[in-house]
Each structure stands twice: as C-alpha cells, then as structure tokens.
C-alpha cells in the first residue's frame, strides 16, 4: 500500500514542485501597503486624467521617477476647493496640509521595491515604451499596471528578474545595442 502510494506520489509531487518553480506568483504581487495619506491615483490620474509626469517629474529624464515633493501637491491644494467634500476639508488632505505647514514629509511606504544591486533607470524605459501621441501612463502601465484605476497602489507585476529579462529578451537586439537596442547582458542592470 505504502509502496503504491509512494510510487504515485513521487512523480506527482515532483511535477508539482517544478510547476511551483515556474508558475508560483512572486510574493510581492498584490502588495498594497497602507500609506500615511490615502492618496488615490484613481482620482488624480484616472478621474482627473492628470499626466504621470505632473507629479513624477524625473521619470523622463532621470534614473528615478521621483515621488512628488509637497509643493507639487500644494500647486493645487494650497488654495481653492479641491479636496473639499461637502464644503469640508477631507481628513486626508488635512493631514497633508498639516505636514506642509510643519515642513515635514509624509513617510510613504515604497510599493515597487527593487533590490539595491539592480539599477533600473526610468528615463530610457519610458522613452522606449512611450508611443507617439499616447499618454505617458501607457508606458508606465507596462511595469506598474493601470495605476489610474487604483485607489490604493498595489504592485501588479512580479518585478523579479525573470520578468525583466523576458522583456529584454524579446527586444534583444545585440547589433543595434549602440543606439537603441536592448541587451540581456548582466551589466545592463547590475553594476
């Protein structure tokens, strides 16, 4: 009996392990931590259709996209009625305004977190993924998902090495690497 069980169980378990290796979703997918201020991308980028670059100013020119400094928020929220619900300041915006008055920054919790030995420059990726005439968010969505539909930002893509490499592999163009090609050499991301 035991032998029979073992006979069948071994290959089944082995196959399951291999399947897990291949298909197991990385843990970070779906990671949606509670932020100090419940900022809604859905409202800003979705409903109001703001461009990603309005706040994430560095995304097209720097390695880092940049989390907006508070003065960017205050461009709209310092005066005017934005953020008022039924004539009352929303509690979240109240937090923001208080912080700004104290010259303090909220401590956002990083959602998309790459290890330190990975160098991901935003600018060339945004450049490569942007299509003529299309909004920036289409390029951003490749890695970040449809942030404009998220009330709470969550990680949509695995952002593990295999995921990065798959794209690099598809666009790999060793011969034109000089100008615009994509490479799968290790030193592209690790140095």
């Amino acid at each position: 009996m035991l032998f029979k069980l073992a006979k069948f169980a071994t290959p089944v378990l082995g196959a399951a392990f291999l399947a897990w290796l291949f298909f197991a979703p990385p843990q970070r997918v779906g990671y949606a931590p509670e932020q100090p201020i419940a900022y809604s991308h859905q409202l800003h980028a979705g409903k109001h259709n703001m461009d990603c670059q309005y706040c994430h100013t560095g995304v097209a020119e720097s390695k880092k996209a940049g989390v907006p400094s508070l003065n960017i928020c205050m461009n709209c929220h310092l005066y005017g009625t934005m953020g008022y619900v039924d004539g009352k300041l929303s509690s979240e915006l109240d937090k923001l305004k208080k912080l700004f008055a104290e010259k303090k920054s909220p401590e956002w919790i990083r959602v998309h977190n790459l290890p330190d030995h990975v160098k991901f420059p935003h600018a060339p990726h945004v450049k490569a993924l942007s299509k003529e005439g299309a909004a920036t968010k289409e390029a951003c969505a490749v890695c970040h998902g449809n942030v404009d539909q998220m009330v709470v930002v969550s990680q949509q893509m695995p952002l593990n090495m295999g995921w990065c490499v798959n794209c690099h592999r598809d666009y790999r163009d060793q011969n034109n690497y000089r100008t615009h090609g994509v490479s799968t050499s290790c030193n592209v991301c690790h140095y």
Partner: protein
Amino acid sequence: MISFKEIKEGLFSYEEPAGGWVATFKKPTDLLKAATKVRDAGVGRFDCFTPMPLHGLDKAMGLKRSWVPFVTLVTGLLGAALELLYITYIDVFDWPIVYGGKPHFAFWGYIPILFEITVFFGGLSTVAAVIILGRLWCINRKPVAPGITSDTFAIWIGDNLTKEQVENLLSGLGAEITPVE
C-alpha cells in the same frame, strides 16, 4: 533477429517461488549438478538460491543472456543526448552569454559533462533494471530455506511434481527436500 519473446524472457525471468518443492544442498557442486538435472528433465518453473553467485549456474540452468547491458547503453546515450539538448537550449537559445570569447555553442567545453551524464544515466538505469528485474522492492520476501544467504544452496522446483519425482531427479546429491507453500 531477436524476437520479442526472447527479450521478455531475458528481462523478466524472476518468479516468486510458490508451490512445488525446495531441495537444499551444502555444496555448490551438488547444486550445479542438480540444476543441470532439473533443466535436462525439462522442468519449466525452477530457480536456484545461493549465498553467492556461482559460475556456470546460469548455463546449467539454461538462463538466457541478460538484457541489462542494453538498458545501460540506451539510457546512457539518451541521457547524454538530452543533456546536450538542454545545454544547447540554454546556451544558444534561452540566454546566450559570451564567456571568454567563446561562441555560444562551445561543444568542446561540454564534453566532460556529457560523459559524466552518460555514465550517470547508464549506471543508475543499470541498477534500476536489476531492481526491477529482480523485483527487489518486495522487501517482505521470506527465504525459501534457512541459510540460503549463508551456507545453504537450494533449488526450487515449481512444476507440479510429486516428492518422489523430485527425489528421483535429485538422487545421489544429498538433497533435503521440503515442500513450499
């Protein structure tokens, strides 16, 4: 040409002793003689049990050539071929990387691994073949006679023979004959 039957006989020859008679001897020479006699008598189902391998016993019993080496060869080569495919897939198609100025398909560098894999697959399949052919996973097997792993030589005759027939067959060899359940 080798017939399928021959292959099957060469492969699956072991049979659990059930029924019939067991004759035990104290000397290997006696067993050898007994085996020859039993075979000559045209007994179909019989087997010998010895504490050690005896030269000439397989011939005396008329056993067919073992097909184990064939298994070794096939699996060994198959393993090497699979490994070569695997390496080629990795180094040429999946993620080509230049190491030390060598081309992606660096065959000479694969030879040591291919050899080891051949031996690995060949060796393990050989052992697996013996285990399968000897039905060695049935660990609860009882010896047909006490001492057959120490100093007793036994022959089991599974055909429907009477005790007298067996005694006649093995006369003069000093065999002790007992029935098998």
